[in-house]
């Protein structure tokens, strides 16, 4: 009996929601539409509320570091202090609607600067990735290299200063040359998703709903 609640019903709920979403997409049938809209709102609310679970996990990880005095415990302690302070300020903002200046400061300067910094860090890594990947070891990597170089020279205005052929070939690679590959990726990716979805719908894809004990 408990197996039914713990497993089969979960599959049933997944299946019903899946089918409602599919029907809503294809048919003009208002009861389904209303139900689907409701379900989407529910999904959003569940997703929004789940964040607390993540916060609990994070706090537990750092709490353990502090307790066990791991090599990074001092940083975990700093995390706890800062997190507690900011959480209070964030909750204040939610309940009163006004932002404390400390919160705005942390958000506008350190937070924004850090997220810009992290996003831009890829610039470094892409440089070294290009250095290693773009080596003409065989025909395949030579094609990769040629495609990459021409597109880069089409993107940088300097390319057309050197010769008008660079933007011409580069833009061709961009607008035509890459299409067979990218289009097929889209097609086979969707086919894979369809098979995966059907397996889930029929309860055959149990990897992520692993057996409950």
């Amino acid at each position, binding site marked *: 009996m408990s197996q039914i609640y713990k497993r089969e019903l979960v599959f049933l709920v997944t299946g019903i929601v899946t089918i409602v979403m599919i029907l809503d997409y*294809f048919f*003009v049938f208002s009861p389904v539409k209303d139900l689907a809209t409701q379900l989407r709102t529910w999904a*959003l609310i569940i997703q929004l509320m789940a964040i607390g679970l993540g916060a609990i996990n994070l706090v537990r990880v750092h709490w353990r570091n502090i307790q066990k005095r791991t*090599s990074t415990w001092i940083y975990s302690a700093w995390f706890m202090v800062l997190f507690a302070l900011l959480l209070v300020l964030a909750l204040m903002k939610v309940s009163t609607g006004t932002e404390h200046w400390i919160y705005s400061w942390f958000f506008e300067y350190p937070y924004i600067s850090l997220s810009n910094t*992290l996003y831009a860090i890829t610039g470094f890594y892409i440089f070294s990735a*290009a250095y290693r990947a773009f080596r003409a070891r065989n025909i395949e990597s030579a094609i990769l290299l040629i495609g990459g170089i021409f597109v880069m020279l089409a993107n940088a205005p300097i390319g057309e200063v050197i010769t008008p052929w660079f933007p011409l070939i580069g833009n061709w690679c961009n607008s035509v040359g890459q299409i067979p590959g990218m289009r097929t*990726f889209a097609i086979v*990716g969707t086919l894979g*998703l369809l098979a995966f979805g059907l397996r889930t719908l029929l309860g055959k894809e149990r*990897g992520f709903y692993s057996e409950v004990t």
Partner: protein
Amino acid sequence: MAILGLIDGKVVPFFLLILAFALFYFFMDQAKRGVTIKARTFPAVAAISEAIGRAAEMGKPIYYSTGFGQLTLSDAMNGPQTLAGISILSHTTKLCAKNGVRLTYFTPIADSLPLVEETMRTAYLAEGKPEEFIPVTAINYQQDQDSYLTASLGWIQRERPAASILLGGFYYESVVLGEAGNTIGAMQIGGSANTHQLPFLVATCDYTLIMEELYAASAEISGNPDVLGTLRGEDFLKYIIIAIVAIGFLLGLANNKALLDILRM
């Protein structure tokens, strides 16, 4: 004009969906009746056990992540990829539990935590070592793509994992994690159905699962014949698509637009 109450422009996709389901079902049935289907083996899947063997020898941990995935399982493009990643996580965790290798899973997706925790717990239980599963060290949640990446980078340098496994809905973190893993000489296995990250996973990883291979890998791991049936069904659909393109191409050369009009229904 609406056919069967279908929204205009969605008639062909709907019948394609029905056709796909019918084909999948047919081949699953065939597989059940004993028709052998051999799927192409994915080196990336075999590499997972190799990586764990290596980690056991070196006494080092494994880094596992399913990527940014738009921070939620309910995202239509990334949710399924995250789920496929968690399916393979289940397999990986079992191997880790068996070989006594420490695995840390990094994710910024809060609503996937129930699935991840249960998956990993069950894997340890299946190997008869439930007491070795400590959620606090095995699962590392970070809110937000950027802070998840910072924490991952720090962890990778401090713990120096023997392998890093990146399977799921990746975004810009793929190239950074890939290169960071390369720096410390970790073995790398990557895979995504996000076209925009494929160049980087291919460039930085030793083994890659491209697009549908990510979804198919979990089918291969399970080795379940009726799961393999869906792969044969996919191949059949590919033949149909090739046929449509070939016919449409020839009609196109003759400037005949009949097929196009049907497809646009």
